[in-house]
Each structure stands twice: as C-alpha cells, then as structure tokens.
C-alpha cells in the first residue's frame, strides 16, 4: 500500500520532507524545534494531509465518524500509535533485517495497538465496547504503515516522532471534522455518548432549538429536520469527497492528472 500511494499522490512530500532531513543531519547540532520540525507537524494538517492528499488510512475510521465522541477517542489512539511506532521504528531502523522488515513494523504497530486496547479496557470500558473492532484495525491503518516506510525507516527518532505526531493529528482532524458535520446535521447533537452531550436541534423540548415548538426561536426552524442520510456511512464518503474538491480548488497543485 504505502509505496504505491505515496508515489502516485504525494509527490510534493518527496521533494520537501524526505530530502531535507539529510541536509539537516549533516549539521553539527539539530534544533529541537526549528522550522523544519514545525513543518513536519503542520504540513500533514493541510497540504499533505494523510487522508485527503496521500489517500492513506481511509479504511478503518470512516465507520466511527457518525458521532464526534468515538472519533475523538479514535483520533487520540491513532496519534499515539502513529507517533510511537515511528519513534520505535526509527530507533531500531539500522538493525532491522531487510528480509523481515514488514513483519517487524507490523509487530511494533500491533504491540502499540494492543496497549491502546488494554488501556481502554482498564480505564474506559464503555468506550472500549463501542470501538472494539475498530481499535484493532488501527494496525492496518495505512497511515501508520505508510509513515514507517516513507519516513521512519530513513530518519532520526525525534523527527520521526514529530512526523508521526503530525500525520496522526492530520488524520484525527479529518475524522473530527467529518464527525462534527455528520453528528450535527444527522442527529442534531454534539458529543453524544460522552458525559457532556449537547442537544442542539431536534423535534422535542430536550433540544436547544426545538423544531416543533409553537413559540420562540424554534418556530423559525420548523422547516428543518435532522437528516438520516448523514448518519449513514455513505455520507462520510460524500463529505470527504467535497472536502477534497474544496481543498484542490484552493490549491490546484494537489490535483492529480491521471
């Protein structure tokens, strides 16, 4: 997966990230948080977003984005796994035998994911129940694998860690944005399932804007009803499709010609 997609869709990344660490590594002392490091963190948020530009990791997570709360947990889990698998792989990168490279990477990822699972089971059992199968799928989340192949195998630990952190956050960002749109328009709530559920708009008095009220602000919204389409997984595909459309309209460099 990794090699393939990166070749076809992340050409800009090769130019500015994969090459420039070599330049930096020649320096006597590396800055802990210089310009290049900041770029590692911020690039994946927009122009090199793992989901919308590199097309990595679309797989496991779309199903959890129907409400915000589980997608936030998922995002945190992916950031953790992505950052630390990058870190550990980078530390042992010169000792990994080429023949079993892939298995070694997968073992590192699977171990971290198991730690996430055990932690959730221990500290937040209801969330564990909610996400059970999808936590396991972080292992095959192509972002994690993709970053190990494309970055951590060739770079020093601190920068690899930042790269993992940045990509994890870029991924989590898309997750939360999609979940936000879907939850508000689909269910009319926010953070459902957590302790601080906010009911925004809906057809009963429990909601802040009551669309069936006979007086007050609710009467202005009598035409509105929450859209069941948005809670279906298909809606996530539409939202990401439109997100890509907007992003590429703003930045035509990202358009692939194929």
């Amino acid at each position, binding site marked *: 997966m990794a090699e*393939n997609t990166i070749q076809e869709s992340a050409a800009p990344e090769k130019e500015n990230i994969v090459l420039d660490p070599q330049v930096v590594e020649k320096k006597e002392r590396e800055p802990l948080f210089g310009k290049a490091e900041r770029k590692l963190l911020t690039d994946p948020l927009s122009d090199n977003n793992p989901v919308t530009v590199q*097309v990595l990791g679309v797989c*496991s997570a779309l199903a959890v984005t129907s409400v915000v709360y589980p997608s936030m947990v998922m995002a945190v889990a992916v950031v953790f796994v992505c950052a630390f698998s990058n870190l550990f792989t980078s530390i042992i990168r010169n000792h990994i035998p080429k023949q079993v490279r892939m298995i070694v990477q*997968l073992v590192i990822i699977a171990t971290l*994911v198991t730690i996430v*699972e055990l932690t959730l089971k221990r500290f937040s059992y209801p969330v564990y129940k909610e996400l059970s199968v999808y936590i396991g799928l972080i292992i095959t989340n192509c972002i994690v694998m993709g970053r190990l192949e494309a970055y951590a195998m060739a770079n020093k630990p601190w920068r690899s860690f930042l790269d993992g952190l940045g990509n994890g956050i870029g991924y989590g960002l898309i997750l939360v944005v999609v979940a936000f749109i879907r939850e508000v328009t689909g269910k009319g709530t926010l953070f459902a399932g957590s302790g601080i559920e906010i009911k925004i708009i809906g057809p009963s008095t429990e909601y802040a804007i009551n669309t069936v009220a006979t007086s007050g602000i609710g009467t202005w919204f009598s035409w509105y009803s929450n859209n069941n389409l948005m809670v279906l*997984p298909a809606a996530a595909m539409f939202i990401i*499709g439109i997100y890509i459309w907007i992003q590429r309209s703003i930045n035509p460099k990202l*358009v692939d010609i194929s």
Partner: protein
Amino acid sequence: MEFFNIFIKAAFIENLVLAYFLGMCSYLAVSKTVQTAFGLGLAVIFVLGITMPINWMINEYLLSENGLLGMDLTFLRFILFIAVIASMVQLVELVVEKFSPSLYNSLGIFLPLITVNCAILGGSLFMVSREYNFSESVAFGLGGGFGWFLAIIALAAIREKIRYSAVPPALRGLGMAFILTGLMGMAFMSLMGIDPQALGDLTH
C-alpha cells in the same frame, strides 16, 4: 444452508467495502483500471479465504482460555493475526511465483499490498466478535472476499468510463472516487431490507 447464507450475507448485504468501508486504501488506489482491480480482487478473495480459518484455529486452540495452552492469551491476538496474514501473503506470493509466472506477473505487485488491507484483518476481527464457528468463518472469508472483489471491479469500471466525462478538475480522480463509493454504498443499502431472518439467522 448456513454456509451459503453467510456467504451471501458477507458478499452482498454486509459488503466489507460498501457497508463497512474496510479495505478502502487499496480500493481507492488500485481501482483505476478494471484489469488491475481484477487481479487485486482475486488476491483478496484468496488471502481472506485462507487466513480466516487459520486465524479461527489460532484463536480457538491457542489464545482462548479453553485452548491447548489453558491460558487466556487474547492480548496476543492482534500480533498473531497480523503475523499470519503477512506470512500467508508471503507464502501465496512464493507459490504463485513458482507455479504460475504469468499469474504472478499480473498479480505480483498487488500481493504485498494485501497485508495492510484492512478488510483482511477486519474480517478476522469480525469473526472473533461474532463468534463464528469453523465452517461459518470459511464462508464469511470467501463471501467477504467475493464482495470486495465485486465492489472494486464495479468502481474500476465506473472510473474507466468517467474519465471521458466533464468532471470539475478539482474533483477529478480521488474526489470523484470518494463520491462514487458513497453512491455505491447507498445503492447497496437497498439490499439491507432483505430479511435477515430468512437469510442469515441461524440460531433461533
């Protein structure tokens, strides 16, 4: 009959791609032409079909508390499952290369990609959470693989045609692929109404 019901259910009603959106990365990346999609689809059927029973046996006889070791080793489940998948993929690659070089040439590059296809690991994890027995897990593996195969062929065929349409430049390629997948997912939802009682229900 159970076997057949689970196969149909996994292939159509609960299609791994269009209902659960699993295996999305390779699905979007390798669906540019029907020919390559066909090769990858076949490889997925094959790998899903053999890893599922193997993982079932590992889970049942090695990891579970009532297994051969008599210890609850479920915390090793992820690692063993992914190791089985990776080594099976490697094995398939070797076998195909030795016995059918022509098939290897058409499949070759896609085989390693299958290791990180979420549909494969996802299948094994669904199998555990739904507590399928051995024959059910074989049926689920083959059905799931077949559904994935159909879905990627369908998307590739549409993408081949849509190249001649006037899609807005910014939406061309990836953006359109997302929206198409969403539409196909909605179309597949019409299969949802099929009574699971008649199709998939085994136990009542």
